[in-house]
């Protein structure tokens, strides 16, 4: 380059009057080509790192938690003999619906009972539904929910690329129907198993607080921050803070 990149140049015209020889153009072209290539590689690495971490983390988690899976499957089957998994339609990245897998923690006709319990929603008349001592939760369900074991099958959704390990929790379609345009921004990235509000107070945070934390994550996410959130999720899950 004709001048060092850290050198401040007051006048663009001065620069071009100094660098109008053919060999300068050739040098600039070489430099431009190299810069374009390195930046494109950088972007690919930055965008690919999250997916790589998801595949690695999802695979390891499925293997690591296999004894817990086995014990939970046995417990659910022994309790009421109903289905082990619960597949719920959730809204993913860009508003596309997908089936999220969970261990069943409620009675088999939970969705029908929900309408009768809407008046007791802890989030008031808001977008989301959450209540303490929900009568639909089974005994095994109460335990697996406290330690978030019911969420573990979602590592499968992570492996197939519908979800990420860290990202805003995927909402149900009924919630999204009540969204305003501003809330839709949380659907800009892939949904995840854990996020900022999971480690910051979980179900005690209201919907607006969740959106605020989700957007904070979306605007500042990177691989190191993701690792930090995963590490902070472990004590939040073990102490069952805010989960019921």
């Amino acid at each position, binding site marked *: 380059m004709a001048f060092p990149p850290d050198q401040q140049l007051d006048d663009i015209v001065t620069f071009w009057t100094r660098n109008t020889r053919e060999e300068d153009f050739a040098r600039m072209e070489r430099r431009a080509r190299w810069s374009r290539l390195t930046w494109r590689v*950088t972007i690919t690495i930055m965008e690919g790192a999250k997916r790589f971490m998801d595949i690695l983390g999802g695979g390891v988690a499925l293997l690591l938690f296999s004894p817990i899976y086995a014990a939970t499957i046995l417990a659910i089957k022994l309790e009421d003999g109903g289905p082990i998994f619960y597949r719920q339609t959730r809204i993913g990245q860009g508003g596309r619906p997908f089936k999220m897998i969970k261990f069943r923690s409620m009675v088999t006709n939970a969705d029908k009972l929900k309408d009768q319990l809407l008046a007791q929603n802890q989030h008031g008349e808001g977008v989301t539904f959450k209540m303490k001592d929900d009568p639909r939760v089974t005994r095994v369900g109460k335990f697996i929910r406290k330690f978030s074991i019911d969420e573990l099958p979602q590592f499968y959704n992570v492996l197939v690329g519908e979800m990420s390990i860290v990202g805003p929790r995927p909402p149900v379609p009924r919630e999204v129907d009540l969204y305003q345009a501003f809330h839709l921004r949380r659907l800009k990235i892939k949904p995840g198993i854990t996020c900022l509000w999971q480690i910051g107070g979980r179900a005690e945070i209201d919907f607006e607080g969740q959106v605020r934390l989700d957007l904070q994550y979306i605007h500042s996410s990177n691989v190191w921050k993701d690792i930090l959130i995963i590490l902070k999720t472990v004590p939040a899950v073990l102490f069952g803070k805010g989960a019921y």
Partner: protein
Amino acid sequence: MDNVSEQQKEARQQQAGELVLWCPDFQAAEKELGLDLPFILWQVGDQPLLAHWLDYALNRGASKVRMFTENRPDLVRAWLEANPLWRLPWDVIPQKAPEESDAQVMDYLPWITDPTRSTASHPFTGETGWELLEHRQVLDEDWLEHILPHNTITEANLAIGRGCRIAPSAKVHMPSWIGEYVRIGPGCEIGPHALIENGCFLQGQSRVTHSRMAAHTYLGTGTELERVWLKGNELFNLKNRARVNLVDQFLARDMQEAPSREVPAKDRLLALWLQARIRPGAPREKLQTFQGQGLTLSEGPTPLHQRARWLKEVVAGRLQLFGVLPRTEQQLRELPEDWQEILRQAEPGFFSYADIQGCHLADDPEEALHAVYQATQPPRAMREILRPALTNLPPKIIPIS
């Protein structure tokens, strides 16, 4: 942002009801500048203009949106199908003649009596491409003034996306918007009113004011953009109404790779298999008309035999296996102008949708109709129809050698 209950939403829906969007035809103006998208899909701020309008409809609590579209409704419909973020029922209603569409739209808008009322108060008519660009510039600047939600700091109208690298000696003036993964080199001066889309690279010592840089654009050292739209190495200067088609590569360049036009490996293998089965030397033999596997072929020598030599092009990766039938420039010019435009952008291939409809020659007027239909459909959906038809061709069509 207020928390909205279901009852509140219902009340708002009753009040707002159906919302109507009228998308006028600016195609002539868009063509003038060689721009390939209808104005409604142009990027304004951080998303297409249509997305802003859907945001508005959602906030108003609309129960349905109707879009009267004069300009390429198929593209608007395809965009809406690919972007299901707004869970609003929508309807794209194609309109042709402006006079007729005015009347139909007015039926839906009984409270507006004068369709030219909005243009009377605003100089924008969209007659030329430059007017469209200038109007977009006005919309961009208006959007920049309101980047942040109303309940946050209003003095700081600046947004910087994630993964950006900005040199310490660079200056950013508000209001400006910088997308994701943008690199701004030393000594750069950005803003006011600068929009730099995702993945841009500014080498250094550049000034960007009242301008927009399209995604993945490289900007070389010692450059100044003022009232400019830089789109790869294509530059639109709004100040002088001048367009530069090929800027030198060290000044500006599109960093995004062209969309992959590679022939999938499984298509190449299928072409190899077909090559072994189709005898190029048998095009003159007569075949009876028959129906089978959704395939209707007319009597006479089958053109698939005549095309057999194209298969080696597919195997070599130079021609798609599934695509519209290739045609000569002369054949293309005989078609209506809008068909020509669609077919020019369509990928040609060995086996087409027209083939399964019984039209095998580019001279056949019905073949062109099927080709246009194929070109406007999602390629994946077309593959799903065409692949089984090609793999299950009856032995009469492909005499086993």
